[in-house]
């Protein structure tokens, strides 16, 4: 028997298990999936927890509910990968060999990377919302906050779901308005980027929204340290910003097992071919989701488009055929903009987000780079789609590759 090992059973690993289990020849291939935690978190839902729109129970389900029955599941931490020996070693010391491996170990936030961030102010008036603990603690803080200076700060790029911080300030503007304290809250959006987003047309469009909502953007601010005694963030070039409430997106890094195995870059992301998703260093290893070093967004939707391409390339690798260079960096993100409206962007490695209709050209129902109620509905429906279609590896009515149909060049 040969073994296909899936390392990490979160969004991407679960999708791959569900796509491959029904088609790999059962008396030739054993699929084994390894993950260290039993609970699956719907991470996009973390955004809504601080505002009481979702609670903890709305974003969790047991991981095992989503794994196919013919997949061998091992719940234990992987200590180290030995890619030259085609083996992984578990925390208990147990060794597992593989013929093909898919790495889907994701990314996590690391507040301890920034001086002063995870000290006295942590979870008192400094919060993240990229973890369940942070999102819940922030909920409890916001419930009783009477206003002051709120600073949303992105420590450094890249981060997963690069639109989530924008969504957070849009929702905060709405929420403080609902609470009747918007006039008592000063909101600043502090980013290392030159504008509201990474690509120029969307940056301009989203920048106008910040302005309209009276949210001040502070661009090109790379945070060097936090002075939690005096409630200030300080940039590497010694600029200072005061806060009463700091909502931070800490440094995002790939899993520590990648560092322990010497397989990653300086942020533990794995060098990956941007079009085939094969590891650049090892022929029988493939990488998907947040774990890659690709210049695409780190998002569940991206993992979904990657999964379509990787599915085909795994079958090609099994058959000893050349791989397809089919991944184009396609990303599709709903941006919640507050007051029950949303914005949608669709883009890839080469084409930045453009206005238009999606997925049906000229029809929609969603509108690209435009604020509509239908887009908000799309965002809220994503949770159902995630649990019921996406994780199960089902086909969605959207091609893996981005299309220009329905988009307008500017």
């Amino acid at each position: 028997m040969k073994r296909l090992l899936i390392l990490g059973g979160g969004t991407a690993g679960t999708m791959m298990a569900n796509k491959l289990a029904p088609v790999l020849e059962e008396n030739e291939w054993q699929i084994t999936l390894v993950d260290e935690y039993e609970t699956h978190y719907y991470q996009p839902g973390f955004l809504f927890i601080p505002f009481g729109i979702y609670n903890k129970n709305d974003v969790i389900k047991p991981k095992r509910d989503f794994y196919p029955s013919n997949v061998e599941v091992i719940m234990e931490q992987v200590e180290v990968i030995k890619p030259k020996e085609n083996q992984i070693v578990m925390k208990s010391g147990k060794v597992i060999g593989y013929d093909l491996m898919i790495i889907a170990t994701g990314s996590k936030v690391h507040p301890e990377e920034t001086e002063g961030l995870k000290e006295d102010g942590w979870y008192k008036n400094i919060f993240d919302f990229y973890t369940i603990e942070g999102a819940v603690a922030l909920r409890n803080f916001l419930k009783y906050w009477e206003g002051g200076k709120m600073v949303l700060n992105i420590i450094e790029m890249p981060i997963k779901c690069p639109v989530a911080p924008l969504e957070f300030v849009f929702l905060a503007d709405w929420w403080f308005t609902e609470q009747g304290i918007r006039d008592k809250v000063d909101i600043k959006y502090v980013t290392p980027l030159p504008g509201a987003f990474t690509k120029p047309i969307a940056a301009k469009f989203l920048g106008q929204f910040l302005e309209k909502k009276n949210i001040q953007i502070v661009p090109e601010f790379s945070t060097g340290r936090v002075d939690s005694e005096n409630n200030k963030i300080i940039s590497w070039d010694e600029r200072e910003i005061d806060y009463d409430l700091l909502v931070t997106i800490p440094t995002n890094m790939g899993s520590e097992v990648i560092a322990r195995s010497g397989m990653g870059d300086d942020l533990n992301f794995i060098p990956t071919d941007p079009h085939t998703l094969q590891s650049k260093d090892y022929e029988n290893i493939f990488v998907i989701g947040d774990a890659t070093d690709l210049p695409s967004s780190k998002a569940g939707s991206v993992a979904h488009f990657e999964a379509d391409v990787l599915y085909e390339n795994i079958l090609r690798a099994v058959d000893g055929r050349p791989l397809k260079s089919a991944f184009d960096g396609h990303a599709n993100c709903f941006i919640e903009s507050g007051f029950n409206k949303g914005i949608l962007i669709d883009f890839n490695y080469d084409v930045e987000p453009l206005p238009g209709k999606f997925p049906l050209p000229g029809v929609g129902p969603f509108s690209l780079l435009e604020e509509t109620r239908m887009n908000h509905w799309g965002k809220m429906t994503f949770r159902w789609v995630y649990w019921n279609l996406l994780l199960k590896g089902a086909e969605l009515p959207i091609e893996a590759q981005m299309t220009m149909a329905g988009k307008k060049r500017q």
Partner: protein
Amino acid sequence: MAEKTLAGKTVQVDDEGFLVNPDDWTEDMAPELAKEIGIDELTDKHWEVIRFMRKDFAEKGQIPSIRRMKNAGGIPTKDLYAMFPEGPAKKAAYIAGLGKPHGCV
């Protein structure tokens, strides 16, 4: 493609002035490139950064990030910002004759 003359040699540059071919670069071009972006004098510490970047690029085929300069090159991030104000990754790559670092997403 635009061209410009540096240290007596004509080289190809992109529309922002970054060298297109890192192999065209020689050390005597660095002071001129630095002046173009407002750095009047290259100190020994500047040269330590430039030489590390050239070496790392030759070995890895990628322009080192600020984090990599700290981890692998032992160059404190704070010093980088002091030496190459407002965007050290971009400015240092400019002077070292490497292309423009990939923007993030």
